[in-house]
């Protein structure tokens, strides 16, 4: 066990856990932030995607000890009122079916648009290929990202 001081969604959090604990389980079990999902536990499906200093990271294989003073952002902290342009675009396109993977999809999409505000279809497809959607909402995800891109660049 060791003590860690994390900044999660702008809030300081002190906790005492095994240093090998993946950030995913710290968020879900210790900080009660369950919007970040468990899907595979080996960075293959993207359901657990969060941001570390604004970059998309798979939290299921990231030990809490590796976070350091980097800012952690989860789906809950993406926007104060749930109205980030990407979240709005997701609602406009009514993207979710079961919805389980969508928090991870949104976090990947936000990181993509931050790095590249006007991605091509191919860039969207390649970046988003780390996030699996078993319901098959990919065409809507792409459409929503393009809508969000327009909003961001307007």
């Amino acid at each position, binding site marked *: *066990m060791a003590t860690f001081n994390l900044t999660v969604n702008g809030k300081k959090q002190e906790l005492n*856990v*095994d240093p*090998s*604990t*993946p950030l995913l*389980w710290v968020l*879900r*079990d*210790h900080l*009660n*932030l*369950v*919007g*970040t*999902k*468990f*899907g*595979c*536990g*080996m960075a*293959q*499906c993207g*359901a657990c995607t969060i941001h570390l200093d604004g970059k998309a990271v798979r939290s299921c294989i990231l030990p809490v000890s590796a976070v350091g003073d980097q800012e952690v952002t*989860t*789906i*809950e902290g*993406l926007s104060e009122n*749930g109205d980030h342009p990407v*979240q709005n675009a*997701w*609602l406009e396109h*009514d993207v*979710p*079916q*079961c*919805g*389980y993977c*969508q*928090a991870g999809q*949104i976090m990947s999409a936000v990181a993509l648009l931050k790095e590249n505000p006007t991605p091509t*279809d191919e860039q*969207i*497809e*390649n970046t*988003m*290929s*780390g*996030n*699996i*959607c*078993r*319901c*098959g*909402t*990919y*065409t*809507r*995800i*792409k459409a929503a990202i393009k809508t969000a891109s327009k909003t961001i660049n307007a």
Partner: protein
Amino acid sequence: MTTIKTGIGRRSFLKSSALAGGGLLLSFSWLGGCNPSPKEALSLPKEWFELNGYLKIGENGLVTIMSPNPEIGQNVKTSMPMLVAEELDVDWKNVIVEQAPLNTNVFTRQLAGGSQSIRQGWKSLRMAGATARRMLREAAAKSWNVPLDEVTTEASMLYHKGSGKSASYGEMASAAASITVPKEVELKNNKDFTIIGTSKNNVDGKSIVTGKPLYGLDYKKEGMLIAMMVQPPGFGMKLKSVDDSQARSMPGIKDIFTINTYKDDYARQWCDVDAFNDLVVVVGNTTWEVMNARKALKLEWEQFKDHDISSSSFSGDKVSIKVPGGLENSTRHALLMNEYAAKPGKVVRKDGNPDAAFSKAAKVIERSYSAPFLAHNTMEPMNFFAHVTADKAELVGPIQTPEFMEKSVAARLGLPLEKVDIQMTRQGGGFGRRLYGHFLVEAAVISQKVNAPVKLIYTREDDMSNGVYRPAYHALYRAALDADNNLIAFHVKAGGIPESPLFADRFPAGAVENYIAEEWSAPSNISVGAFRAPRSNFIAGAEQSFLDEVAEAAGKDPIQFRLDLLDRAIKNPVGEKNDYEPKRYAGVLELVKTKSNWGVDTPNVFRGVSAYFCHDSYVAHVIDLVMENDKPRVQKVHCAVDCGIVVNPVAAINLVEGGSVDGIGHAMYSGLTFTNGAPDQSNYHQYRLIRHREAPREIDVHFVKSDVDPTGLGEPPFPPVMGALANALYKASGKRHYQQPFITEGVKRG
């Protein structure tokens, strides 16, 4: 106007009462049933008036509608309340939706399966709305002292034209709650629908995109422990010994023990399928601690011998299931399937004289198709919360069959049925996997043992290696053409490990003079269950690939070839027991033909077509494929659907798009193989699911305009697309595909 007796589901209408003290009812379930409503919606009322088990109206006009069925991504939590709202004539923006708990006294068929939720709820849900509307009108008529039939409604308002009087539903709710429940009510004519047929966004949308706790895995309760199980490493094996000395002393670990999910003398229900009945369980404080302790267990396994399990079929018949011993291999399965296909099967249907027709044929085409076991791979792994005390059991989580599993839990714990309470969460996918709720029983047994609230969690590896798979299938087809290239005989022999995928009475049965359908099955100890569009999910692709090849051999356009056969089935059907309506079948082919501009070739675009009927609906696909760097990519999917009345177009289109992507993905990439009883794939680095860059670039969905009551939609778009894909791949590469997943056969440009 249809008049309908409220005797259907009468139980839910017996009690009609004003429920005072809004506080009690405002304690909405933790499950986020109360959706954040649109900006312009009303705030929560001070008081609710329950007009029947499906709905309650606040004094300010806000309406809560209960969604009775499990939500697995098929949109019933939005589309089922739409049916209630339609007949209530309520303004949709003043509706909030709550997931109903399991309550067989109020609701009927609280099940997600067979694409039947909307179809089976079509009358009962509308009746719930119509009954409440009638009670509001009666209350208004009484209060205004005017004849009932002069009281009209529109968008949550009551009107009397003659006197100019009007009142909102909220104002009349209290009086309506004391009106006697009518014996019969009128339902609207289809042409008067104002909600059904209009697009309503997902009522959980905002909660999903903001990461609210909606799913079973998100559920928490004070004092809750985490449990995980360890199952044998392969099918055909069972537990021999446990050494937990090291694991037991690890941080956060509360207990380690073994459980039997079902008792040996228990007669299982159809949904009590499991693979491994003896499990080692680790219970602790947090997920990571339990995961680590699991790794420190020293377990020995041994092979089990042939044995029987007492069970019952879906229709309730008692059956004894033989579970053979032995460690199975996919290489052996492939040989086994060929052996069975070479032997006579069980003849299920025979029309005319197939033998004679084949012997005089000018051309005979014979092809075999196969597909592997599939794991459901819902993105949310299996899990369930249970809190069992001496006199009751409280269960919360994702389950498609709560009504059935309540009985299994009650039997296992020795509690009366009414002491078992099941709450349904939103589910991170179902696809048939959560019809089989052994994990719910496991959670209950674990909670009872540790005497604490427990959440049982499967890892992805647990989930993927846990059985209840789509069976492995095989189909052999033969077709006979005469000298004029007419299809004079058709033969299908289909089977699987351990069940057959055959639907003997589906197309082309009824369209061919001489027809024979045979089936076989080979025993296995690998457990199987329903997987999105069971059996159809293989046989559609096989049959539609074969018909494409037969059409080509006959020198006919593949759509025209099918239409000609359907024309025969319309005008002069062979046999009397044909499952499908040939006109509706032809309808989707005609629609997809028009919408895809079939017959107009585009350079370097390769097209394949298919059509299929299942779950009472008809779907046709045309796929436009391009080759990029020698790799196939679906440029566009054109899809025509006849599912009767479309309740919620935006969600219906989403389901058809998703079904098409899912079908292309499974046909192309997915499969589970076995070595010595153990699955060779245990996570997504080995088991491929379709990813974004492999998905179709564009999907066009068209619905046949229809006045037929709604039929299935969750499953029907999934099976046929596999055939369209195989046929498009052939056009691109010159190579036919017979074995799924096609990627294993190589899919390069020819």
